[in-house]
């Protein structure tokens, strides 16, 4: 228990450190004192205020929350589906959002978020209904139907982007995940919804532990498993709908972060979930910082970086198999 708390505190401190580090790096270099002064409105240089508050801060907050939410929903789905390979995109919701976004791009909509979230919600409804066996969510069906729905929708995306090939590059870039086109209003909304979602996620975290050991056993121990499955399916779907609609499909965060944490502190969801949020935030912030500066002046989609860093880490973890 103590070790787990210490782990949470240490990762949180690292997050704060990287937060400041990321605020300081860029074409204009700032030191920590200048940043703190700017954050508390004590800096006289107007340009610093513009750089820190209007350009860097929204994007950094955005990265932290998207990374955190994705990692958390990965951890949830791994427990609910009892499958260590589950990631936030396994239920197909992300492909629904992506198809919505593709439509938006093809018809030249200004706002990609709305068609994306609409696509996500339609997919949530379909996957949920299709996964009911005798009126109850069957996690085996959920997994298969989710994967198949995802494959189907992805094929439609490929079909559309081939037919309307003038938008192909745009669609592909969007699909790879992109944190650069964020408007401040969305950041505020994201932070607001995230904080609410985090509270709801933590609320039944011990029941997630119990259901991860077996659904039938969980019932006999006093867990309302039908409620729990629906509750966490909806929460994780909401998370994916929001994240993908805002930032595209950023891979690997949701899959590897929970496993990295299991490696250090085990599978107790009461600690795994908050730790996933923190470490997911760290991971995506670092990746995005790299995506911004690795190939200056070109900025590459963050999804490429998370894949390039994420996949090797995952393989190393499996080779040192402990909890994975």
């Amino acid at each position, binding site marked *: 228990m103590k070790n787990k708390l210490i782990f949470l505190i240490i990762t949180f401190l690292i997050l704060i450190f990287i937060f400041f580090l990321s605020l300081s790096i860029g074409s204009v270099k700032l030191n920590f004192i200048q940043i703190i002064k700017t954050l508390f409105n004590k800096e006289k240089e107007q340009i610093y205020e513009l750089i820190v508050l209007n350009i860097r801060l929204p994007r950094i907050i955005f990265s932290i929350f998207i990374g955190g939410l994705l990692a958390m929903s990965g951890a949830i789905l791994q427990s609910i589906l009892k499958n260590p390979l589950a990631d936030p995109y396994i239920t197909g919701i992300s492909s629904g959002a992506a198809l919505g976004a593709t439509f938006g791009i093809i018809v030249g909509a200004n706002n990609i978020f709305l068609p994306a979230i609409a696509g996500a919600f339609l997919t949530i409804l379909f996957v949920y209904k299709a996964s009911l066996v005798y009126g109850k969510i069957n996690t085996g069906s959920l997994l298969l139907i989710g994967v198949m729905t995802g494959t189907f929708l992805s094929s439609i995306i490929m079909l559309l982007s081939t037919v309307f090939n003038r938008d192909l590059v745009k669609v592909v870039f969007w699909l790879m995940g992109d944190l650069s086109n964020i408007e401040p209003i969305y950041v505020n909304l994201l932070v607001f919804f995230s904080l609410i979602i985090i509270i709801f996620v*933590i609320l039944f975290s*011990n029941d997630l*532990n119990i259901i991860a*050991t*077996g659904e039938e056993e969980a019932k*006999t*121990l*006093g867990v*309302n498993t039908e409620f729990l499955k629906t509750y966490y399916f909806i929460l994780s779907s909401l998370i994916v709908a929001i994240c993908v609609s805002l930032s595209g499909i950023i891979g690997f965060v949701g899959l590897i972060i929970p496993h990295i944490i299991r490696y250090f502190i*085990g599978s107790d969801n009461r600690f795994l979930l908050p730790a996933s949020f923190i470490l997911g935030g760290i991971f995506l912030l670092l990746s995005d910082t790299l995506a911004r500066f690795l190939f200056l002046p070109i900025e590459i989609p963050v999804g490429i970086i998370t894949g390039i860093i994420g996949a090797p880490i995952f393989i190393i973890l499996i080779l040192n198999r402990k909890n994975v």
Partner: protein
Amino acid sequence: MNQFIIINDLNFKYAENGFKLENINLELEKGKIISLIGPNGAGKTTIAKILSGIIDNYTGRIFIEGKDLKKLNFKEKARKIAYVPQVFNTIFDFEIKEILLMGRRNNSNGIGFMKKIDIDIVEETMRDFGLYEKKNKKFSTLSGGEKRMVLIARAICQGADFIILDEPVAYLDLHHYVDLINILLKLNKSGKTIFLILHDINMASEISDEIILLNRGKIIKKDIPENIINEDIIKNFYGIKNFIIKNNPVTFRPNVIIMPP
């Protein structure tokens, strides 16, 4: 009233394969060791799953200490009846202490930060079962016998007076087998009602106050071991020929001894 559980006209059918339990009527007395035996596919585990609340779409009525099982919520059920499954595999690993704390879910909430009394109960149970020194060991690193002990300990943590064990001695070596029987007898002495699902007829005969014989979803007979373990029943329901029945020279309970063909 001495009945812990009363089952009235229980009927249940699996939608998947059509197997059904038909007109089950039973009264299970408090403080006894009761074994449920019967050939494969008789419906033993189904009855256990119904009693423990895993299956709830049955017809008929089940009363637990006078209360209708369908009207109890999950936590109330878990306080009255504990279920020790036959197999238990975790994909994600938990420590022994974490597993036992899950037994206290019926006294806490979904977040699971336990009150002192819950932690005290878990620690006391770990001491009783000799698990205290290993409390931070991962479940997956335990032997089959140790795993079984942890699961029984978790059932004890639930504080339920009625404990269902599905094939508790399967895959156990002689040492753990004897340990387990001693634990069951001890629990029974402390007032728990023990409901066993057994393939091992001799164990059922030795340990039980009563045996229930189930076949193809119907109850054939419920009686003391001496009246159940006889040549006719073994021949008819288990379909074997080469055996004799001898009484244990110490307990005088009937035992089935298999002969070479």
